[in-house]
């Protein structure tokens, strides 16, 4: 409601300004007390105010047309609305002589002969001006929307990157990993120890140096994840089992940068750390017609369907979900489902491949 009211005010203000400028031009007639000014031009502005609404509607509606079609459509619309304006104005002008001045009604032929081509050209130009103003507003709004969207995407990406770094710097992960290394050294399993040190360093380096593009290939996204999971599986070597099912055809598919990390983090937090005995994580990608589906499964307690989904999701996931909708609008899906003694997170996005 508020928005509509604002728009109406804007339109009225526009026309008042227009009227003032126009009247300055016609200052002579004003002083000459010309009747056409009072009976034709001033009521004309009222009609323009009313006609601006359908014009605005047609302008917005035509947004879906291609550029040329839209141009032709709007040119046609301004011709039509311009003509309507002239006819309305003229009828009003004509009737006002009879109503206000008690002059007898002239014949229809007389009525028509008064309209000159000039009036039509004038109305056509004015509606053109209105359309140009609408166009400028539209371009400005689109630009603003775009930059807002970009800013939101940047923030979310930064958040995802921060989350990834935090996950690796989490004391439990880091110190326990270091503890494993120290124990391996004590046992004389030097090669394993070196692998783990190298793995930790790679992991940190990769997440620090990763370029902050919004989209990267699935292969790149998984590279970091594999490093992370390698270390986790060295920590829980007799308990944690990790499977990948990533077909060659999906490796170059583009995915949002850092999108999988929170899913895996969640799998540990709400799944693996909540069960005794053997645990499993499965990461699978699949191309289904022109869509990419990515699934992360973890064994563990199933979701409580009685709880609202937001409580099951956790904060990390909400950033992922926001990013998906920000990047793909409604063309993406995110789901958490219970599946054989565990939970599966599923992302579905359009399949785009990196151009080599």
């Amino acid at each position: 409601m508020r928005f509509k009211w604002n728009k109406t005010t804007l339109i009225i203000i526009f026309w008042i300004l227009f009227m003032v400028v126009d009247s300055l031009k016609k200052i002579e007639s004003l002083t000459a007390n010309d009747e056409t000014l009072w009976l034709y031009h001033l009521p004309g502005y009222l009609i323009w105010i009313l006609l601006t609404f359908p014009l605005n509607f047609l302008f917005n509606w035509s947004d879906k047309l291609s550029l040329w079609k839209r141009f032709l459509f709007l040119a046609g619309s301004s011709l039509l609305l311009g003509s309507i304006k002239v006819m309305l104005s003229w009828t009003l002008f004509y009737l006002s002589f009879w109503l206000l001045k008690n002059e007898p009604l002239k014949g229809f032929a007389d009525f028509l002969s008064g309209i000159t081509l000039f009036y039509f050209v004038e109305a056509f130009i004015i509606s053109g001006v209105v359309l140009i103003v609408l166009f400028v507003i539209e371009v400005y709004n689109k630009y603003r929307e775009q930059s807002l969207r970009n800013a939101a995407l940047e923030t979310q990406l930064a958040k995802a990157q921060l989350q990834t770094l935090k996950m690796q710097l989490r004391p439990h992960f880091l110190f326990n990993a270091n503890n494993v290394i120290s124990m391996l050294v004590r046992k004389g399993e030097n090669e394993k120890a070196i692998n783990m040190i190298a793995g930790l360093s790679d992991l940190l380096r990769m997440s620090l140096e990763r370029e902050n593009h919004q989209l990267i290939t699935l292969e790149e996204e998984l590279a970091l994840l594999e490093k992370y999971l390698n270390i986790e599986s060295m920590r829980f070597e007799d308990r944690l089992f990790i499977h990948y099912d990533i077909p060659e055809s999906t490796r170059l598919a583009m995915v949002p940068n850092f999108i999988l990390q929170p899913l895996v983090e969640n799998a540990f937090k709400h799944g693996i750390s909540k069960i005794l005995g053997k645990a499993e994580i499965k990461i699978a990608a699949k191309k289904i017609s022109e869509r990419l589906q990515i699934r992360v499964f973890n064994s563990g307690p199933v979701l409580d369907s009685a709880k609202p989904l937001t409580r099951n999701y956790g904060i990390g996931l909400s950033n992922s979900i926001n990013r998906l909708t920000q990047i793909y609008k409604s063309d993406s899906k995110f789901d958490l489902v219970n599946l054989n003694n565990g939970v599966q997170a599923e992302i579905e996005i359009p399949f785009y491949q990196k151009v080599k």
Partner: protein
Amino acid sequence: MLKPIRVIVIDDEKQAREGIKLLLEAVPAFELVAMCEDGLKAIENIYKHHPDLIFLDIQMPEINGFEVLNSLDNHLRPAVIFTTAYDQFALKAFEHHAIDYLLKPFTNKRFYESLEYAKSILQLSTFKRFQHKMESLLKDYFQNHKHDTDTYVVRNRHAEQATFSNKLTIKADGKIHFVPLEEIQYLEGYDSYIKIHTGEKTHIVKESLKTMEQKLPGQSFLRIHKSFIVNMKYVKTLEPYFNGDFFLILASGKRLKGSRNFRKGLGKYTL
């Protein structure tokens, strides 16, 4: 010769357990009697072996180190050296109650210092004081962690193993209770909790009957209604009712209504 000090190492990470084992092997006064990868096995082994000393990791899946200690009878609680990578609350609490702990990773020097310390508390007069400290530590911990002391049945992946197969593991108020399956007569489901009826006691756990069904062995337990699971061992007679519904009458005289939707399961029982 002195009796060796008997030790159990409890940690969910394999390398962490094996590293401590290696360090202990160098000291003849200590004898490693068991290594456990989670809290449940820890409780079982402590009851079985009555160790003098345990190395106890705090953060473990499902049952943490404090809950392990809390589940033990006071007189059975051994001397404890906590091991942890990081836990702000625990570290503060240890300092406050003057209890020894190892921060992972630790040096050999630090490890052997804590072994010396353990030896000293195991002398009778100091051990009493240690036990008091431990009691107040646990009280402190569970007062500060009331929010995660829900009651529920622990998803027990060891259930196939003989020592666990005949018990239901229930976590309540930060304590682990074992309820022998053969004592459970029937379970009654409500919106968000279940009443587990044994002959003498009723346990209430926060759980749905559906997840509960998965945690019980299918041979003896049968779902007969959307709100009942019954232990067939306790069923005396089946009484047909209208439309395929039925009643099961237990040895205790309790009548449970069964629904036709669950009648299929009755097939294998000839009553």
